[in-house]
């Protein structure tokens, strides 16, 4: 069972809330099979949200997308989405783990839960990004990723539909890279190449 572990695996982590859905969609359009890393998206979703993100985005990319099951191996060339009502944790055995502890800042899935678990997993993080949203979630996780030496990016609060989330991240840690309106997708595209 542990043969799932691929030593060359790296992660791209993307978190967002209100105002991030369209950005997620545009980022997914940038991804073309094959990609050398795994992309994990955490979008705040209501507990009873029944939309299946891989279905919603299926015309946008040819990279395999899924809402992973508990214990599924994390593999390169895959796009993953956190499910509603569970935190999605990254294990150092390169598997996903569900967690049903309390929400962070009223959110389950929480961005912090995924980001912190990824930062502790020992799996290299190629880039972590945090976009528009109206909560504090994600700030702690992004800070820890930066402190571990991974490249971290936040949307410029000036251009975010809901600035609170990127603002909180910058309040916790000022040195995150800013993704300004100018060349926004060009910069992200370069990060994902």
């Amino acid at each position: 069972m542990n043969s799932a572990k691929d030593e060359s695996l790296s992660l791209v982590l993307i978190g967002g809330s209100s105002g991030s859905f369209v950005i997620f969609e545009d980022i997914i359009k940038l991804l073309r099979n094959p990609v050398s890393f795994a992309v994990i998206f955490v979008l705040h979703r209501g507990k009873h949200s029944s939309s299946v993100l891989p279905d919603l985005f299926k015309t946008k990319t040819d990279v395999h997308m899924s809402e992973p099951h508990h214990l599924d191996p994390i593999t390169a060339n895959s796009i993953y989405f956190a499910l509603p009502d569970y935190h999605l944790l990254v294990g150092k055995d390169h598997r996903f783990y569900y967690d049903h502890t309390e929400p962070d800042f009223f959110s389950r899935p929480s961005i912090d839960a995924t980001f912190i678990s990824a930062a502790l997993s020992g799996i290299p993080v190629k880039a972590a990004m945090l976009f528009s949203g109206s909560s504090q979630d994600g700030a702690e996780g992004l800070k820890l990723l930066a402190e571990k030496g991974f490249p971290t990016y936040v949307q410029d609060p000036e251009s975010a539909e809901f600035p609170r989330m990127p603002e909180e991240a910058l309040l916790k840690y000022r040195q995150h890279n800013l993704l300004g309106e100018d060349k926004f997708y060009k910069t992200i595209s370069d990060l994902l190449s």
Partner: protein
Amino acid sequence: MVVLEYNQLEELIIRIRDISGFDFSGYARPSLLRRAGRYLAKYDMDLGELLDHIEPGGSLVYELIQELTVNYSEMFRDPEYFKKVRTEVFGYLESYPALRFWVAGCASGEEAFSMAIMLKEAGLLSRSLIYATDLSNKVLTSAREGVFTLGNTRTFSESYMQAGGKHSLSDYYHVAYNQAIISPELRKNIVFSLHDLTGDGVFNEFQFISCRNVMIYFTLELRQQVFRLLYDSLSMLGFLCLGKRETLRYSGLEAHFKVIDSTLNIYQKIK
């Protein structure tokens, strides 16, 4: 927020085991890391302070175990699951003269109360016995009292209606001292008792077992062992219900069950 590293967590696991005998080594580390970190943040201490404070003979270690293992439960959680059990499973159970249910990892009892209400409305409660077990005496004490905070009743009522409830949830509790108390009539068919899924064995044979959002806290290996225990505790053609997003994947027992509902994770033992 306090962040623990994996090696620190191992240190904590060993310390807890040495002092209390309770062994977390079969618990999934990513989740345990999160829980331990939240515990330290809640009490504003670092790992060193915690290790200094948990001493043989003290009560802190047991409080810590309690907080690291506790599950949060609610009435009629995932209403569509209860609705499905009512429509797809109860019809089958009606043919039995006596029924035994097991709610494994029942926490403060809400799931067992929900099941009792559904059985009552289906006319099955009088011939049913619900065993509700947990490894924590503290939550079982609360479950036996049948008390939950009034603030939750509105959400619970909505879930009850969505689950296809036939009356009003308020028919099943009374209010005293700003708390809701489940009616004694429902409680008399529920036996709350101490049972650790990771250490204790089969104690009865059941037609129905629900073990929802419990197994996600175990390692792959321990999870397989617990699945085996549940399988061995089920009568042939008995039902096993898991959490909304949990599956039998990686259990080693996939071939022994028929899928009744693949999204709500209701399974029937077929061999």
